[in-house]
């Protein structure tokens, strides 16, 4: 064998180990299963349906929140009318999080898993989590 054969094989082994990082980090470690977000809401009478179907919300919620932010902050327009004629106050804390109260289970599960770091909470304060039976008041 040529003089440098062993060194080249060593380099190859290091490369293959690096390439297979995702395999051995997953194999030799107990990985907590990925959790889907908890969509469960507090059943507020008359507010039992979200502003958009959940399939649409899943992929476009960030765009919707962005539109709401622009509409409220720049145009002072707070009323959001859904396609089926319902009206909502454009507010993350007071509309969205009034039903989906638990940020950790509703927002953070996916965002953490996918390294998404939304800047909602630079300005907003996350509501205190309260059991559904404790009334509707949310800070």
């Amino acid at each position, binding site marked *: 064998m*040529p003089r440098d054969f062993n060194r080249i094989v060593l380099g190859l082994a290091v*490369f*293959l180990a690096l390439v297979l990082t*995702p395999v051995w980090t997953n194999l030799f470690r107990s990985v*907590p299963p*990925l959790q889907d977000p908890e969509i469960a809401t507090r059943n507020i009478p008359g507010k039992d349906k979200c502003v958009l179907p959940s399939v649409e919300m*899943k*992929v476009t919620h960030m765009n919707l929140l962005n539109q709401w932010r622009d509409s409220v902050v720049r145009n002072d327009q707070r009323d959001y009318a859904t396609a089926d004629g319902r009206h909502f106050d454009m507010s993350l804390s007071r509309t969205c999080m009034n039903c989906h109260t638990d940020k950790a289970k509703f927002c953070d599960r996916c965002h953490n898993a996918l*390294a998404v770091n939304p800047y909602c909470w630079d300005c907003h304060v996350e509501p205190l989590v309260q059991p559904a039976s404790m009334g509707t008041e949310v800070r």
Partner: protein
Amino acid sequence: MKFGFSLLILALLIVIPALGASLGGAPFWGIVIPYCALLIFLVGFTSRVLKWAKLPVPFRIPTSTGQQKSLDWIQHSPLDNPSTGLGVVGRMALEVLLFRSLFRNTKVELKEGPKLVYGSSKWLWAGALAFHYAFLIIFLRHFKYFVEPTPFWVVGMQNLDSFFQVGLPMLLATDAVIVAAISFLLLRRLLDARIRYISNASDYFPLLLILAIAATGILMRYFFKVDLVGVKKLAMGLFSLKPVVPEGIGAMFYIHMFLVSSLIAYFPFSKLMHLAGVFLSPTRNLANNNRMRRHLNPWNPQVKVHTYEEYEDEFRDVMKAAELPLDKEKQCPKAS
């Protein structure tokens, strides 16, 4: 023609999974194809490198752009023409990390006169550097799909990548850079007649394939959104060898996945092997120490020699009779 052929192959690689995934058989597109591609990559890459490793390189090849180390009063360039192992490490690091040989790219032009003019041309170097580093960052960023919990360095990398907070989902700077850089590298081959003349299908195809991978990734981020949690479940299932195919991920993902699988499977048979080859370039990875050490070719045949000493031993009496000068007056007795 060669470009058209590459384009045709790429179109097939997009149409096949687009039709296939819509017909169903998600386990085939989500599990079988990626595993096959990874297997081809690992076996192909290893065997190609081992084949290269078995080739003997008995001599130092001092092709270089710097003055070799010789006399003390001649200035030596230790990085361009290193004489020690450490110098070689420096030269290799500059080559692998900063593409030093592309930095030396020159352009020839025929000016009025006629006059032949050579000039510096850094565009190839800049485009290649931008492309490779953007690709590296994008590849590392994808570890958010491979590992749970997401490694902290991926989060940091992504935050830095979306630093400018443009659009929503926020524009990742590397996405813009890679599309711009590949487009440049592709147009460079297509628009310059001289470079087009020396370009083959195997030059166009990897560029087109990687451009298509970047494009499908960007399309998934902004236009044909997919279920990302499902994607992560699928990816982690593959890597933990417990494959699962979550429902309803979206066809664009399967196109992206098929293109990536194609790239991985194509890798060992293509110019992309320069990933390993750059480390095995004999003109770059050997110290030029020909003046300090004698390098013998290990498979030279044994040459039968007859030294003067033996010659004199053989003809001493005859030489003495002819009064020829002798090194030794008497034949040495054989060592007892």
